[in-house]
């Protein structure tokens, strides 16, 4: 139920994000989700792509520091109360969220989560009948 997410270390300077996406573009990689976490000097670009292994290899070939991290994806109506409920389920079990981001399509929202214990989180979400997506389902959204 986990989804491989690509993390790329990038310096906070102009043009760097462009270079990453151009490298992926040349390999016809498709992107489902993208977010950037930044500090004043560096950032981490997080991507969910069509072929994460291939994307990792091509970026490594261009000297980027890349890693694959597993994340969880949940689909829910795009109302705040659903996001809140999801977070409550996790916090009630003392599962902490390292980061989360989301996007919506129509009235449906896809929430991406990275927890300190993904397995526990999946278990808790399933028990509470939250709808999880696997990688291929996520791509069909």
């Amino acid at each position, binding site marked *: 139920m986990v989804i491989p997410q690509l993390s790329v270390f990038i310096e906070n300077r102009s043009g760097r994000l462009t270079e990453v996406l151009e490298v992926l573009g040349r390999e016809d990689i498709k992107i489902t989700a993208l977010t950037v976490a930044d500090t004043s000097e560096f950032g981490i670009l997080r991507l969910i792509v069509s072929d994460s292994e291939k994307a990792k290899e091509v970026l490594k070939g261009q000297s980027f520091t890349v*890693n694959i991290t597993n994340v969880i994806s949940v689909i829910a109506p795009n109302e705040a109360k659903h996001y809140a409920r999801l977070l409550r389920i996790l916090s009630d079990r003392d599962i902490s969220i390292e980061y989360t981001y989301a996007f919506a399509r129509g009235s449906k929202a896809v929430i991406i989560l990275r927890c300190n214990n993904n397995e526990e989180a999946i278990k808790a979400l399933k028990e509470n009948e939250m709808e999880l997506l696997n990688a291929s389902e996520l791509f069909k959204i």
Partner: protein
Amino acid sequence: MEIWNGHFECMDRLDLKKVQSERLMETVERSYFNVPYYRHKMQAAGLGPESIGSIDDLHRLPFTTKQDLRDNYPFGLFAVPMSEIVRIHASSGTTGKPTVVGYTRHDIATWSEVMARTLKCAGAGRNDFIQVAYGYGLFTGGLGLHYGGEKIGASVIPVSGGNTSRQIQLMCDFGSTVLACTPSYALYLAEALQENQVDPSDIKLRVGVFGAEPWTEKMRREIETKLRIKAIDIYGLSEVIGPGVASECMAQEGLHINEDHFYPEIIDPDTLQVLPEGSMGELVFTTLTKEGLPLIRYRTRDLTRLTSERCRCGRTMIRMEKCLGRSDDMLIVRGVNLFPSQVENVLLEMSEIKPHYLLVVDRVNNLDTLEVQVEVDEAFFLDKISQLEALRMKIQESLETSLALGVKVTLVEPKKLERSETKAKRVIDKRRF
């Protein structure tokens, strides 16, 4: 302007040469018989004390380097029993081990004498209040100025470095007339005075004695304008004695070397040949009177040139130009000696990063800044900002502990820093000297 020791400072140069020759022979003899290192080195060169008949024979003797001091850490080059040593100072070294220097009672007297000359060169006297804002401690700056100040009978204020608000308070309340610190700190103080809306006419500063780091003429003019003082350049290094090796006089046309105690040569750092007067090259010192740690042909790595032309002030002591460059990779950051290899040693001990680094030295608001760029190792790169920040702090703390210097660590992308088996570019110095 008064001269502290006219007998020596204005001595006829031919008479001076006789003094230097006699003192050199004594130094060589003492070093040969009391320091195995010097004896072995001279024997290997087929030399003995009898080989040195005057200062003209000095060029035959082997050089001494910082590495030699390190190899004999801590007291191996001392020429007297430890019972004769009354003071120990130390400066930072490349391998984490400091360079250690020892003084006999007589050495302390010599040091006070040359510092008295230095302060007199700057026009100070018994009616002055000398604010010593050099660090007190293992660093020679604070105590060197302190003893010289007492020797000339001035009122010494041993405030030591840092704590700018206290510096300003004492400067105003005590009416300090002489300021002794690094030139960059002098500029920093000047700006702090402005920020605190202290009118320069409310303080009594008249002159500054500034050293321990290279500084330009432009910086001098800035200090002189902002503090409304005369800024005097002083030179010294702890291995030779500390501050007091050389000082500018009020003419500000080069630094008079106290060459009756410290004999200077200029060599080509590549061929090691002695260069004629006036040539730019590496400054080498032989101590002529030191007992605790005599040094024979010690390579300072500082680049300068000498002139024995008579100075307007009347002193005959040879003058050296302001030192602005070095023949090795040592950096001086906020008065602290720093070799890139020190940084490398710290980084090599950390598995999370690659031993590729770049030092960026700059001067912001007149204070030196040191940035260390390091590459994150891929194996360690997970995707958490907090983890990267923690790593950055860990590197920063290790470096600060080891270098005794504030550092800003920046994590950079891999292979951004140059790789090379031979001479990688490890330093970018943006300061303009």
